[in-house]
């Protein structure tokens, strides 16, 4: 009798266990993946989708993020300043170039989940965020001169750069050990050695390199995984203050 009761107790527990299965929208899985810096599977990646993107612009607060807000993104006619009209290709660009993933990895469940998440941010009939977003990345760069204000540069650094590079001068809180410490790492590399043709001195070189890297990120001949900052996000006037932080010793 006692054994039957105890067996029934165990069985009841097991039966009630089956009731714990919850069916959730795939978008929830996508939202979790979008927050996960390990999502791409690359040991070199520290970016999550949410490192550079927010849902609505207000969520960025004071931060200046290189990625466009995602609310309405699935209904936009184009992405990457009109460079592609397909959402999947836009996502693949981030996935491959910044997150160091393989494009084919987005063809399976991970891609479906992320796609469902983006779709959930773009409800049918809603128009919020559906207009194409202008991001201009000038192909050529230049020396913005030495007239920038370092104090204003520090404020802009905190808003635009600290999100990944951590605290200015120490790198504390940066995304990972591969992320450069600003400005030391840049200056260590570009305040010595041979100057490229047409560059008058190291001071100009450091400014130009900082500008090129910020504008082009990892593209147009500059390696790494950094996303580019368009002129709509940081104007050349603001960039002049930022490059003022890059002063050779």
């Amino acid at each position, binding site marked *: 009798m006692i054994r039957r009761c105890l067996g029934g107790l165990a069985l009841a*527990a097991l039966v009630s266990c089956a009731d714990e299965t919850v069916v959730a929208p795939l978008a929830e899985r996508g939202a979790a993946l979008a927050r996960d810096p390990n999502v791409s599977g690359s040991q070199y990646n520290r970016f999550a989708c949410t490192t550079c993107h927010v849902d609505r612009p207000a969520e960025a607060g004071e931060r200046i993020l290189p990625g466009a807000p995602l609310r309405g993104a699935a209904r936009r006619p184009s992405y*990457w300043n009109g460079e592609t*009209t397909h959402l999947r290709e836009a996502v693949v660009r981030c996935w491959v170039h910044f997150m160091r993933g393989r494009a084919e990895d987005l063809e399976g469940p991970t891609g479906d989940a992320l796609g*469902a998440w983006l779709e959930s941010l773009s409800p049918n009939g809603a128009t919020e965020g559906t207009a194409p977003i202008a991001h201009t990345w000038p192909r050529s760069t230049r020396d913005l001169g030495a007239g920038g204000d370092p104090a204003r540069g520090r404020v802009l650094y905190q808003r635009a750069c600290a999100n990944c590079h951590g605290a200015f001068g120490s790198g504390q809180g940066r995304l990972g050990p591969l992320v450069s410490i600003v400005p030391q790492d840049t200056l260590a590399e570009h305040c010595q050695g041979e100057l490229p043709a047409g560059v008058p001195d190291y001071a100009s070189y450091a400014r130009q390199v900082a500008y090129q890297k910020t504008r082009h990120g990892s593209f147009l001949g500059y390696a790494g995984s950094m996303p580019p900052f368009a002129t709509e996000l940081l104007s050349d006037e603001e960039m002049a203050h930022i490059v003022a932080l890059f002063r050779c010793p």
Partner: protein
Amino acid sequence: MPRLIARTTRAALGLAALALAGCGETNVVYAPLDASPWGSGCTQLAVPDAGLGLVTNSLMNSISALDLERGEVRGPYPVGVTPLAENGPHHLAYDPGRGAVFMPLSFPAPALAPGPHAEHGAASVPGVLVKRAACDMRLLGRVDVDPNPGDMVLSPDRRWLYVSHFDLRRALENANDPPRQRSNLVIVNAETMERVRSVPVCVAAHGMVLSADGNTLFMACYGDDAVGVVDLRPAVPTVRLVYITGQPPARVTSPTHGPYSLGLSPDGETLWVGCTVSGALLAYNTVTGQIDQERVTRRLAGKPFFPEVSRDGATLLVPTQGRDELVRMTARAPLTILQRVSFTRDECVQPHQVARGPDGLEYLVCEGAYGGQTPSPGTVLALDPDTLAIRRRYTVGYYPDAIVFATPGQRGAP
């Protein structure tokens, strides 16, 4: 007995505890989607009755579609794959069976260096051959090819893609190693987009034409001053160079003729070769395997680009640059100029290719101004085949380079 009860109790309670512990971890199952979140994608290109022209805009990373019925331009549709860069789509092929468009992206070196950091100078960047759905230009496949892909053709059975490489940089960098100066013919499986073979052919190959049976590929070998004749039948294709002057040039980096563009007569017996260095237009006899010395002319005022031979093979149209004209001439010896048509700058700047449309009109692709000139968009002129009068003018993107046509009901045989 009490011991047995105790053991049984412990076992049952343990089992229950285990079950409950397992239940503490909620098992979440994500609802499968009814359809792909990225959209299912279209399969068929909507083609008006009169046909559709697809034109590359090589300085805009895009193609434009010409509605030949309404006389309207659709697009541009972006086709690049590398962000921020000049992707440089030049030539293209349309496969109605797969509903796909193929095009090599060349990533030309930018006129202005992007910045002072090392490694700019994009000419050494590998090219990419892309396959896109013709109906919405979504990416279906891609494969890396060599730097500076030039022309590309699709085999008649639509199984293979052939890509030439106009790689002058390779010739310059290997001046002391002639075999390494030769560019590769890259062969790609059009279905899987796998690169199946790479065959060294000649220095800076550009224009290509396939014989109707798909067995022979003709190539304009710019640096070698030669016509390259590639036999595609063997497992490893073989290459024969027919030198225009009968012998190799003294220096492949500075050719005398610079053969660049090709056009094949409908009967397949005459290959027309346009040379951008000497300005010569000449005929290669595909039957004898020799340059036809009676059909060589240097009397064009400009440099000849991609020509079109009339259906009866009696005449050909040749766009020329330097003096921007379209020239009609006899195709039989002695080569005689029958008509010259020049254009205003609003109409056509730097004509590059002429091709017969499905509506019987001749379509002239004009690059527009770029480089040191004030940039202007390119144009495509629809010309009366008899008078060469302009019937329509389409304004497309910057530096259009090539046109292909789609017609309704077209079927392929992949």
